[in-house]
């Protein structure tokens, strides 16, 4: 199945995800006017999300994302792990 969702987060940045999934994420594209440092790590975040079970509780997905992002020393500016999780959950509703 293909799912898509967009959300304007608190400070006005737009986060959009396009997901191919069937219980698990097969492919995901995250786009928007936010900042991630270093920029190329968006690919790592997308790769990390592949295989994730979208039926997991929101809090679990957010916890996994937060751990991964902290471990890789990736910085999100203009949105956070909770925003991204919310958009993913919205896309697979």
């Amino acid at each position: 199945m293909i799912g898509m969702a967009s959300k304007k987060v608190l400070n006005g940045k737009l986060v959009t995800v396009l997901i191919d999934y069937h219980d698990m994420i097969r492919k995901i594209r995250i786009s928007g006017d936010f900042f991630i440092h270093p920029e190329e790590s968006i690919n790592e975040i997308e790769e990390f999300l592949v295989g994730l079970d979208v039926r997991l509780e929101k809090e679990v997905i957010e916890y996994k994302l937060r751990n991964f992002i902290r471990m890789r020393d990736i910085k999100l500016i203009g949105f956070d792990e909770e925003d991204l999780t919310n958009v993913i959950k919205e896309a697979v509703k």
Partner: protein
Amino acid sequence: MKWRVIKLEMHDPYMNLALDETLTEFVGKEFVKPTIRFYGWKNSAVIIGYFQKMKDEVNLENCKKNGIEFVRRISGGGAVYQDNDGGLTYSVAVPKKYFENDISKCYRIVGDWIIDSLNNLGIKGEFKPINDITANNKKISGNALSIKNDCILVHGTLLYDLNVEKMFSFLNVAKEKISDKFISNVKERVTCVKDLTDVSKNDVVNALIHGFTKNKEFDFGEWEIMELKRAEFLSKNKFKKDEWKFMR
């Protein structure tokens, strides 16, 4: 720390973006001094942020019809329309080790230089986190930052002139949104130097040079031949390629 300042020059959009990436390489490895450059756009272009999807952001059909280029930059943030007449842009490149390692502080530091520049024109600017400068509570400058090749690059635009209708004809905003109300809403949120004071573009360039170099040791400098060669390579083999433009 001594800076190299490159005075206003015009390049095509691909070369402008390629020169910024080249700066991260040459400044990051300290082959050249930390650099401040000022530049304009030989051809008008829509420049999207690194994480944006080209087809979502840009009205490709209208751009092609009007000879407007569409390009992706190396930093995040939102799409901007740079008119060959209206946009004044600047880039600041510093080795990572010399600049604040806190991203919001980097925006703040360069933001203060822009505020000083505006002050030179009699305009009171204010820093609006994360990355904007406002005048009369309206956005007048937007900035983006990239950390690459051990270099921090902050680049942005000071709006000299603004044609909201033209700008949105090249951006993908839902047609039903481009109403008179939408345009007037944008005009309530965005301003430009020309709206606030009667100065020439040249005056603004001088104000920027003074604002950005205040209390700094600097020389006006030129590009190294190797930098130009590298930028030409990146322009042709990266920024002009569809695989980069339509990466997302």
